[in-house]
C-alpha cells in the first residue's frame, strides 16, 4: 500500500475520532451549562417565588392617600371663621421627572417661582415617597394656570391639581384666635404619623387650628391603585374614603369681636370678654394683627420678615402671651384679701397725703394724685384708686397672705383655656424670689405689689378670668373657645373642668363689687365717663401699668415721654353688677390712663352684648 495514501486514511480516521469525541464532550458541556441555567431558574422560580411574587405585587400596587376635608370653624352664630376653598396648585411627582434640576429651572422661568419655594420643595421631597405628588406652588392664579397649561407637555411629571385651601374670611380680626394652617415643615414631618399626613400638605400652626388639629384634620382615606412603571394609575382596586374633620363652633361673637377690635383703634393691646354663664370667650382680640391667609400657601421670606420685625409685633398673641403689670386693676383683689383675712374692714380708713413711707425709711412711695386723697376708706380707695390706702393694706397683709389669696384667683397660673402656648404670668412670693432671684423679700416690694406694680405680671385672659371669678362671687371661671364639636351630624361631648369655688364671705365680695360699681357710677369714680345711657350697673376698675419708672423727685409728664415709654392703660369690668353676665379685660398699650382709653372700649363691648341680650 502506498504509504502516503495510508497516511491520508490514518489522518482521516484520526480526524473523525477527534471530531466525534470533541462533539460529544462539547454536548455534555452544553448540557452541564443548561443544567446551570435550570438550577438558577429553580432558585428564582421555586425557592424565590414567594419573595419575587411579593416584589411584583409591590411593584404594581401602590396605596394613594386621599386627603380628608378639614373641619370648618364657626363663631357662636354660625359665621364662618375658617373654610376650605378650591384653588389650583402646581405639583410634581419626582418619580416621573427625569431631570429634576432642569425641570425646576425651566419652571422657574415660566412661572417666576422664587428660589425659596424651590428650596422648600427640595427639602419636602425627601420626606415623601417618590410617587407622591408634592406641591411646588400653591394657590396659582389664572394667569399662572394658563401659562403652565400651554407648556404642560414639556414638563412630564408636573401637573396642576385642584386642591382645597384654608381661607380665613375675617383675616386680621381672628388671626391669633383661630390661628392658621401652614405648610408642614421638616421638623413636623419627622414626628407626625406618616399615614395621616401623606396626602396633606398643611397643618394647624397656631390658635384653634393648632389646638384642635386632631379634631379638625379628619382621617385620610386610601385608594389601592394598580400602576405602571411610571407610577401612573391604571386601575383602582379598592378604596377607603377619607373621613372629614369635625366642624367647631366657637364661643366667639364676631359682632362683639369686631366692636372690640375697632374700639382699640390705633392702640395695640388686647380685649378679652367672657360669658359668665359658661366661661365661653366672647371676645379675644389681640392687636396689632396680621392676615393669616398669607401663611396658608407658604409665606414669603420678605412678608414674614416684615411681620416679624415690625415694632407693633403683629404676630404676638397678646391675649395669651402678653404679660403686663396689672396696675390698679389688682386693687379690688387686694382689698378682698384684706377683708377675707380680717386685717381690715370696710369702715377702716387711712389718711392719704399723696405719698407713703415705710417706718424709719426716707423713700417716698407716691400716690398717683400728687396732693393725696385725704381720708379714704375701702370703698373710696377703690373708687378713686388711692395708692396710699393699698400701700398700707399691703404692708398689713404681708406678701404671703397677699400671694396666697391672689393665687386662688388664678394669678400666676395658666387659665386652662383650650388653646396652646398660654403664658402663666407671674405672681411674686417670698418663695419665688428666693428660688428665682436668690434674694430675700423686701417690705418695699410688698407695697408696690399692693398696687399691682413690681414683679407681678398678668396676661389679659388671666385678668378677665379673675374679674369673672370675682363677679361670680368666687365661682371659678375657666375660659374656653370650643362651644360645640360636630362630626357630620353628631355633636361630640366636650369635657369641661369640674366647677370650683373659692370660699368667700358674701358680704365681703359685695363690698368690693359695690366699690367697683362706684368706680363707674359715682361722680368721683375714675371711670365715670362710661356710665351714660345704661339702665344697669357696670362694676369696673381702671389701671395704669408703668412701663417707665419715675425717679425720685421727678414728675411724670406725658408730653415729655415718647409714646413707647407711656404707661399701659388697663380696665376690668363686669355687668350687670347685680347679675353678672359678661366680664371684660382691656389693655391698651401705651394708652396712659385706664379711665380715658381702656374703659370706653370695655363699655362698648358690654353695652353691645347686654343690649342685644335685652332685645
Amino acid at each position, binding site marked *: 500500500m502506498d504509504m502516503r495514501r495510508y497516511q491520508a486514511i490514518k489522518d482521516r480516521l484520526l480526524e473523525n475520532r477527534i471530531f466525534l469525541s470533541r462533539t460529544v464532550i462539547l454536548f455534555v458541556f452544553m*448540557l452541564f451549562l443548561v443544567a446551570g*441555567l435550570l438550577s438558577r431558574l429553580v432558585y428564582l422560580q421555586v425557592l424565590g417565588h414567594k419573595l419575587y411574587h411579593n416584589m411584583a405585587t409591590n411593584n404594581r400596587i401602590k396605596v394613594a392617600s386621599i386627603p380628608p376635608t378639614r373641619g370648618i370653624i364657626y363663631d357662636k352664630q354660625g359665621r364662618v371663621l375658617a373654610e376650605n376653598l378650591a384653588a389650583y396648585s402646581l405639583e410634581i411627582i419626582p418619580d416621573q421627572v427625569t431631570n429634576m434640576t432642569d425641570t425646576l429651572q425651566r419652571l422657574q422661568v415660566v412661572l417666576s417661582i422664587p428660589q425659596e419655594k424651590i428650596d422648600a420643595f427640595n427639602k419636602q421631597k425627601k420626606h415623601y415617597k417618590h410617587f407622591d405628588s408634592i406641591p411646588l406652588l400653591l394657590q396659582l392664579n389664572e394667569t399662572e394656570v394658563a401659562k403652565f397649561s400651554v407648556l404642560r407637555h414639556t414638563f412630564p411629571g408636573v401637573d396642576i391639581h385642584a386642591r382645597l385651601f384654608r381661607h380665613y374670611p375675617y383675616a386680621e380680626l381672628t388671626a391669633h384666635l383661630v390661628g392658621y394652617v401652614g405648610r408642614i415643615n421638616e421638623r413636623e414631618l419627622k414626628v407626625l404619623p406618616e399615614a395621616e399626613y401623606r396626602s396633606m400638605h398643611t397643618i394647624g400652626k397656631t390658635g384653634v387650628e393648632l389646638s384642635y388639629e386632631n379634631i379638625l384634620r379628619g382621617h385620610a382615606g386610601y385608594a389601592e391603585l*394598580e400602576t405602571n412603571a411610571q407610577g401612573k394609575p391604571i386601575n383602582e382596586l379598592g378604596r377607603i374614603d377619607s373621613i372629614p374633620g369635625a366642624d367647631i363652633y366657637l364661643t366667639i361673637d364676631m359682632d362683639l369681636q369686631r366692636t372690640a377690635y375697632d374700639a382699640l383703634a390705633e392702640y395695640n393691646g388686647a380685649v378679652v370678654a367672657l360669658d359668665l354663664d359658661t366661661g365661653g370667650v366672647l371676645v379675644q382680640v389681640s392687636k396689632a394683627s396680621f392676615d393669616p391667609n398669607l401663611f396658608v400657601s407658604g409665606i414669603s421670606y420678605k412678608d414674614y420678615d416684615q411681620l416679624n420685625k415690625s415694632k407693633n409685633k403683629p404676630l404676638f398673641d397678646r391675649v395669651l402671651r402678653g404679660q403686663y403689670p396689672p396696675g390698679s386693676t389688682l386693687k379690688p383683689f387686694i382689698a378682698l384679701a384684706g377683708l377675707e383675712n380680717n386685717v381690715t374692714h370696710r369702715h377702716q380708713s387711712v389718711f392719704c397725703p399723696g405719698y407713703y413711707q415705710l417706718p424709719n425709711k426716707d423713700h417716698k412711695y407716691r400716690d398717683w394724685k400728687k396732693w393725696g386723697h385725704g381720708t379714704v376708706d375701702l370703698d373710696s380707695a377703690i373708687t378713686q384708686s388711692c395708692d396710699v390706702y393699698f400701700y398700707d393694706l399691703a404692708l398689713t397683709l404681708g406678701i404671703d397672705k397677699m400671694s396666697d389669696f391672689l393665687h386662688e384667683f388664678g394669678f400666676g397660673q395658666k387659665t386652662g383655656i383650650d388653646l396652646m402656648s398660654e403664658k402663666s404670668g407671674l405672681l411674686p412670693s417670698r418663695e419665688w424670689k428666693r428660688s428665682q432671684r436668690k434674694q430675700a423679700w423686701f417690705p418695699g416690694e410688698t407695697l408696690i405689689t399692693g398696687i399691682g406694680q413690681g414683679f407681678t405680671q398678668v396676661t389679659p385672659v388671666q385678668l378677665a378670668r379673675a374679674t369673672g371669678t370675682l363677679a361670680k362671687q368666687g365661682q371659678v371661671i375657666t375660659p374656653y373657645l370650643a362651644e360645640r364639636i360636630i362630626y357630620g351630624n353628631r355633636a361630640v361631648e366636650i369635657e369641661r373642668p369640674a366647677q370650683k369655688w373659692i370660699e368667700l364671705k358674701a358680704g365681703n365680695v359685695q363690698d368690693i363689687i359695690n366699690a367697683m360699681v362706684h368706680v363707674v357710677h359715682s361722680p368721683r369714680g375714675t371711670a365715670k365717663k362710661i356710665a351714660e345711657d345704661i339702665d344697669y350697673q357696670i362694676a369696673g376698675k381702671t389701671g395704669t401699668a408703668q412701663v417707665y419708672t419715675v425717679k425720685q423727685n421727678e414728675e411724670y409728664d406725658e408730653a415729655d415721654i415718647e409714646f413707647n415709654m407711656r404707661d399701659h392703660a388697663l380696665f376690668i369690668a363686669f355687668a350687670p353688677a347685680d347679675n353678672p353676665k359678661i366680664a371684660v379685660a382691656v389693655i391698651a398699650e401705651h394708652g396712659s390712663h385706664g379711665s380715658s382709653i381702656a374703659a370706653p372700649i370695655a363699655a362698648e363691648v358690654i353695652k353691645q352684648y347686654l343690649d342685644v341680650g335685652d332685645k
Partner: protein
Amino acid sequence: MKVELRAEQFKEHSLIGRLLRRLHLDIPLLIGLFLLLIMSFMMLYSTGNKEIALLLRQAARMGIAGVLMIALAHVNPRQFQRYSIPLYSIGVALLVAVLLVGDVGKGAQRWLDLGLFRFQPSEMIKITTPMMVAWYLAGHDIPPKWQHIVGATLFILIPTVLIIRQPDLGTSVLVASSGASVLYFAGLSWRFLIATVLGLSALAPLYWQFFMRGYQKDRVLTFLNPEADPMGKGYHIIQSKIAIGSGGPYGKGWQGNTQSQLDFLPESSTDFIFAVFAEEFGLVGCLGLLVIYLFIIARGLYIAVQAQDTYSRLLAGSLVCTFFVYVFVNIGMVIGILPVVGVPLPLISYGGTSMVTLFAGFGILMSIHTHKKILQN
C-alpha cells in the same frame, strides 16, 4: 441509527419528503425552528400590547430570513469553502468602514448606511469568521500545528477587536466564540485550551483597566451587586429577576405578564424577552424551551458529525456552537448569572439582523447535510 434509517425511508417515499429533499431542507431542524417561531409570535403578541403591525413586521423579517436560508441550503458547501477568503475579507473591510463612516445608534457605531437599508457588518462576520478559520485549518494538518493555531487566532482577533472598538461586547463575544469553536473542533490540544483559558483569566484585570468602557464596567459591577443601585443601573436586572421569580413553577399564563405589561421591565420584547417567557410560562415552560433549543443543537451537532469533509464539519460545528452561545449568554444575563451584554434570545427576540444571521447559519447547516449524498454519488 435505526430511527434515522426509518426517517430516511420515509423521506424517500413520501411526497413531502421528496419535496423537502429537493428543497435541501432538514425536517428535524425545520420543526425545531418552527416551534421557536411560534413561541416568538406568542411572546411578541404578549409583550407588544397585542399590536398586529409588530407581528407583521417580524413575520416579514422571518420571510426574508427564510428565503435566505433556503437559498443558502441550495448552495454546495464547496462554494462556501471557495468563497471563504473573499467573504471574510469583505466582512473585515466593512467593519473597518463602520469604524470610519458608520452610523451611530444608541451610542455605538455599528451600522453602515447603504442608502436603501442599514447594514450591520458585525452580523455577517459571525458567519464569515468561522468560514475563514475552517478554510484555513482544513487546508493544513488536523489537529493543527502551533503556527496554524497562531494564524487562526489572528483571523479571529481581527474582527473581534474591530467589533470591540464599536463598541459591541455581545457581538464580539459571539464572533470570538464562533472562531474559537472551530479551533476546538479541529482538535486544539486540551493543554493549550486550558492554558488559553487561564491566560485570558489572568489578563482580565488588564482588560478591565485599559480596554473596558465605563458603562461596560458598570454592567459588570451591577451584575455582581444589582441591589447597589436598584432604581438606576441595577433596575433592569432586578426587574428581570422579579418577573422570572414571580412566574413561579407554572407561570402566570400567556399574557399574564404583569411586570412587562405595566412597563416595569424594559426591553421586554427584545433582549429581555426570556424574562417575560419565564413569567408567563414558569419553570415548566422554561424547561420546555431549553429542550427545544437542545434538540436543535443536538440535530446540528449530528449534522456536523455526519459531514463528510473537514471544512464542512468544522463550519457546521462552529455554527451550532455559536447558536448555543447565543442561548446561554442571553438566558444567563436575563436570569442574572452573566453580565448584561447585548445578545438577543435566538429566534424569539424581536428584531431582524440576528434572525437573518441565524437563519443563514441554519441554511448552511442544511446545505452541508443535504449535499452529502450527492457527493457520495
